């Protein structure tokens, strides 16, 4: 049997609905239709009245979920694309993120953001918004890179008493396969060594983990052992694991798919140098997308985001330093 990343998300939701009657799912076209990406396929029939189609009202969708959470429900909100969460932004960062701190009432909602670029999707169906949400206090931002993490971290997210922004990468939906969902091992907040090495550390997350691993494989032919750290959650960020890796390798490349100003790669670099400056044998490096909207044409898109080629190139420079 082979399970995809997308199936992991569907199965995790199935399991969450099964385990806890307080869980429900709310989003556009997620009922009978099963969602734009089929992440909720069949769930409406299996859990009648708990998988509901929403109007095109992202602000109200999130507002409804927060209200429901106050009353003890544990809603999952599916945004049709991460990009459209910009319309629900205010409810997310000002209402959900502040509720516990202001009132002592926790806000257990999970907002699923189908994220990241795929060929031909253009500026408004390709965005990665983890860096935006991570800036705000009161939110947990997870970015699973594997089928196993997609499954377990979604279950963890729904069980968490705090609002979780669940960034699932559309590029991985069908591409990524596993034999099983494995076991629940690392909790949210802990990074994983996706590939061990001793010569340089790539800290990354989500789809870029796979570009990094492939770059590391390529460099192995030149005799380099590159370690890849998969952040899993970008907030909280597991700085201990990152520093331990940099302590071994002395070299850091922070890699992310989203826009270059600020964001995860800046935070990674800043944390490493403020807490582990002397671990570094070379200046740290960053690699992100280019500083323009995400292009529609495949040729442009491939050049806009980091790929195995540009990661390998960056690593070569880092290793040669």
């Amino acid at each position: 049997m082979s399970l995809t990343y997308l199936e992991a998300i569907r199965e995790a939701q199935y399991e969450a609905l099964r385990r806890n009657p307080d869980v429900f799912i709310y989003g556009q076209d997620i009922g009978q239709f099963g969602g734009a990406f089929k992440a909720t396929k069949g769930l409406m029939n299996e859990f009648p009245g708990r998988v509901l189609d929403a109007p095109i009202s992202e602000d109200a969708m999130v507002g409804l979920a927060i209200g429901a959470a106050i009353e003890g429900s544990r809603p999952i909100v599916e945004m049709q694309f991460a990009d459209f969460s910009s319309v629900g932004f205010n409810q997310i960062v000002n209402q959900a993120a502040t509720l516990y701190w202001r009132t002592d009432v926790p806000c257990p909602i999970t907002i699923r953001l189908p994220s990241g670029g795929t060929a031909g999707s253009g500026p408004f169906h390709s965005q990665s918004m983890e860096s935006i949400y991570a800036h705000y206090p009161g939110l947990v931002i997870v970015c699973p890179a594997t089928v196993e993490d997609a499954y377990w971290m979604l279950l963890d997210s729904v069980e968490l008493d705090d609002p979780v922004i669940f960034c699932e990468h559309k590029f991985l939906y069908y591409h990524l396969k596993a034999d099983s969902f494995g076991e629940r091992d690392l909790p949210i907040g802990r990074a994983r060594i996706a590939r061990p090495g001793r010569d340089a550390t790539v800290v990354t997350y989500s789809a870029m983990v796979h570009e990094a691993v492939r770059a590391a494989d390529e460099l192995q032919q030149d005799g380099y052992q590159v370690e890849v750290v998969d952040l899993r959650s970008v907030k909280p960020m597991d700085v201990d694991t990152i520093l331990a890796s940099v302590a071994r390798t002395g070299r850091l490349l922070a890699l992310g798919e989203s826009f270059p100003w600020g964001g995860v790669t800046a935070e990674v670099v800043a944390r490493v140098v403020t807490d582990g400056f002397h671990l570094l044998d070379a200046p740290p490096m960053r690699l992100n997308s280019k500083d323009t909207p995400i292009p529609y044409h495949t040729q442009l898109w491939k050049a806009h985001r980091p790929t195995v080629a540009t990661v390998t190139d960056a690593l070569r420079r880092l290793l040669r330093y």
Partner: protein
Amino acid sequence: MEAFRVMVRARTLEDKLANLYKAGGRLVGGVYLGKGQEAYSAALGIQLRWQHDILGPFIRDQAARIAFGEPPLDPMRTYFGSVRGPMRGRDGNVHRGRPKDGLPAMISHIGSMVSLVSGMLFARRMQGRLGDAVGAVTLGEGGTSTGAFHEGVNLAAVEKLPLIIAVTNNQYSYSTSNDRQFACSDLAERAKGYGIQGRNVDGTDLIQCVQAFDEVVRAARSGSGPQLIIGHTLRLTGHGEHDDSSYIPESVKKSPIGRDCMLIAEQQILEHAWMNDKEIAEWKNTCRADVERMVATAMKEPAPDPFKEPWRALSTSELCEGQWTV
């Protein structure tokens, strides 16, 4: 008459707040009052039962809060920033609330509470424990221009939730008059466009307000879906106490819309002999004494101590990052 007593209590409390603000120094932050809107607000509040119904109040609903059952010390404690208040000094003034008791704590972004209150009702219904509970959310007429208002009302209509959307058309949104806010002659007509019921009421007239909310809340309780109600009145104070509202022309202040609902209510009470002069005077004294006691209590209470603050925005403490900066 319950609603009138609430009005007096609210007005007394707010007059005190205005004085404290003007005296300066003791209150934290600004002061936002509901002067001129007590009849409408109280008439809504008396229909709602604490820990049974839901009230998502706007900034001018001291009266509705009192009638609903907000703990009496909550306002003063919040204005003084006492750690014993429900917001513990973290948030203030009209942003206070007790979500678990059915009184969500508003965020400032106008319109945002419509869908939130809808979500509370939605969850209770899904959990099978809605019963005959209703939710009310209040806004000013300016709030009807927000996308959040529209999305929230439409969603409540689709879900046929027992939601009362009580808009106070007090003629101004801060300094902005209605001709720059909307172009329709009757905001209640928006109801039809959402497929819900809508009506108007004279917000300066307590008896009419009580009557209207009695009907509206009854309709919501009995399954008629969302109810939009527009109360017409004038804000008899600044937007906040920092604002002298000099932009409101005298002619408006002197027009029927500018009547003080307190005076009218008092007349109505006397006319119907529900209370006599003496009883009213006594009640006012009681309210004043109560307010002074609240001030005395709240003033003495400790301010939040930054060194004791946990500074954690997540309930899951192990996921809070330390003070990693520096």
